[in-house]
């Protein structure tokens, strides 16, 4: 602080002087009010509905019943499993694609670094739905890719299709979240002091060993952040399942959306949302332990 200034050097007490310690609280109040009313209270409300019975017509009353949870888990186990498998697969794929890309941009990007980063985030400038519809066009049974492979090259049988299969769905999810993986990886890799890698090589590590022993451990926070940024939304995704998948490949997001918006079944919809949240928290905790560093988020 400015404790060293001569007493009386400032003309009168400043705002901080007059309001004392209130300033930070005044700054926080409106935003935190909004988040309390429209983030925290909805979560509480959703929990209340998940243990309630009743209907929209009669209103709901809290019964401390786990019926909605039991119903949700027993009826929609398959959709939960789909979410975990497809979301997990897509996360692994984005990591496999994203790491080399982030590595190349960070270490070999040179003067093209900013342009490459710009290209990575360019998909954000178009609507998520339009991009997914574009894949629907591209992957269609008679779309530009399959039509060539089927009719012009004759590699694939005429009945072959990708759309409506888990492959198309995972492909779409991977596409949608790839930038979320590349950006944190890039940030982590870019921060690495290149002299550390040179030091490893001076100590007779070859490039591969230096990569394994120096670069990779230092990039772990980026891997952690990127994985979470991909896995969490991928688990809850329902657009790719709806546009690129089929009824059999529906994920839990489709069920939640259907229960809440179509059937007005608030208890089960709420319970499913809570189970999804819990599943994600458990997955994140396990993953953090697996990577084995507590200061990953720092």
């Amino acid at each position, binding site marked *: 602080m*400015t404790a060293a200034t001569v007493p009386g050097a400032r003309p009168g007490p400043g705002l901080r002087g007059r309001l004392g310690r209130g300033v930070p609280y005044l700054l*926080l109040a409106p935003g935190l009010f909004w*988040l309390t009313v429209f983030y925290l*209270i909805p979560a509480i409300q959703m929990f209340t509905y998940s243990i309630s019975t009743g209907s929209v017509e009669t209103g709901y009353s809290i019964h401390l019943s786990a019926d909605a949870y039991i119903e949700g888990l027993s009826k929609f186990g398959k959709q939960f499993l789909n979410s975990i498998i497809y979301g997990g697969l897509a996360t692994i794929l984005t990591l496999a694609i994203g790491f*080399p890309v982030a590595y190349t941009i960070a270490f070999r990007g040179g003067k093209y670094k900013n342009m490459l980063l710009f290209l990575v985030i360019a998909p954000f400038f*178009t609507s998520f739905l339009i991009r997914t519809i574009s894949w629907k*066009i591209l992957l269609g049974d008679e*779309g530009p890719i399959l039509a060539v492979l089927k009719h012009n090259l004759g590699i694939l049988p005429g009945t072959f299709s990708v759309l409506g299969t888990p492959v198309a769905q995972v492909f779409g999810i991977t596409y949608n979240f790839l*930038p979320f993986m590349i950006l944190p990886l890039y940030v982590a890799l870019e921060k690495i002091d290149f002299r550390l890698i040179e030091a490893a090589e001076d100590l007779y590590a070859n490039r591969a060993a230096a990569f394994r022993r120096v670069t990779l451990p230092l990039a772990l926070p980026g891997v952690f952040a990127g994985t979470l940024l991909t896995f969490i939304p991928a688990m809850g995704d329902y657009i790719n399942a709806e546009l690129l998948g089929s009824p059999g490949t529906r994920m839990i997001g489709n069920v939640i959306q259907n229960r809440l918006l179509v059937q007005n079944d608030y208890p089960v919809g709420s319970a499913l949302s809570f189970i999804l*949240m819990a599943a994600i928290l458990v997955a994140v905790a396990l993953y953090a332990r697996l990577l084995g560093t507590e200061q990953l988020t720092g």
Partner: protein
Amino acid sequence: MAASTAGAIGTAPRGSLWQRMERRVLPAFTALAIVYLMVPIAVMIVFSFNEPAGKFNYTWNQFSLDGWLHPFDWPGLGDAVTISLLVALISTIAATILGTMIGLALTRYDFRGRGILNGIIFLPMATPEIVLGASLLTLFVATALPPLRGGVPTLYPTGFVTILIAHIMFNISYVVVTVKARLAGFDRRLEEAAMDLGANEVTTFWKVTFPLILPGVMAAALLAFSLSIDDFVITNFVSGTTNTFPIWIYSIQRNALPVQINVIGSIIFLGAVTLVGLSSIRSGRAARIR
């Protein structure tokens, strides 16, 4: 590790293999990945010049400027775009103000609970969008049902106001994080200098602090705007019968896929690219001057 002793003998060939990979394979792989990222955008733009044979703009038929000449020629589309722009504009302004204030409090002041709040502020970003949307809907529904009915303002049926509420909510955290990142590198001595020269706190804020954090605030606003205008998942839960552009696309795509979707998507894309391009040129020039 054993690899280092084994590697000592075969250092040259293994090293060169790695180097060859770094020099050839990685750039090629990156180029492919970028093509993968660009392809749907290219499809969107190319198909905006299509004249679809039927109701669905799925297969290439024939070149046409029809969509570009009549970009809003589809019932409800113009309204949806207007609502999207309005929601994005208002929610951006509100979230930027609220978020910047929280960002300032978190970086410039020491107060009880700051550490916890620094973590809590990430929560809305870490919550899956579908859960955010679902929980907001349950709150809005509850305001119209007993026991809440009559006690609080009713927010159901959902519509423009609830969309706005939701967008402000999910944008606040993003603004806080962006503004905080900018404030982290802030030289506080500049403010102290201003105060030593006789400026009070308010003058110091507007003459020194605010101009310095303005680029961060603008970046936050840009992010908030783009998140808002593209949001589908949360909006879908809280929009009722009101359509934003993404909601409109979602509801029409089962029955038709008009070329206008591609046209407006392309306009938004080109507009955003131009905006970012201009701002990066400007900041590049500012950096050179400095």
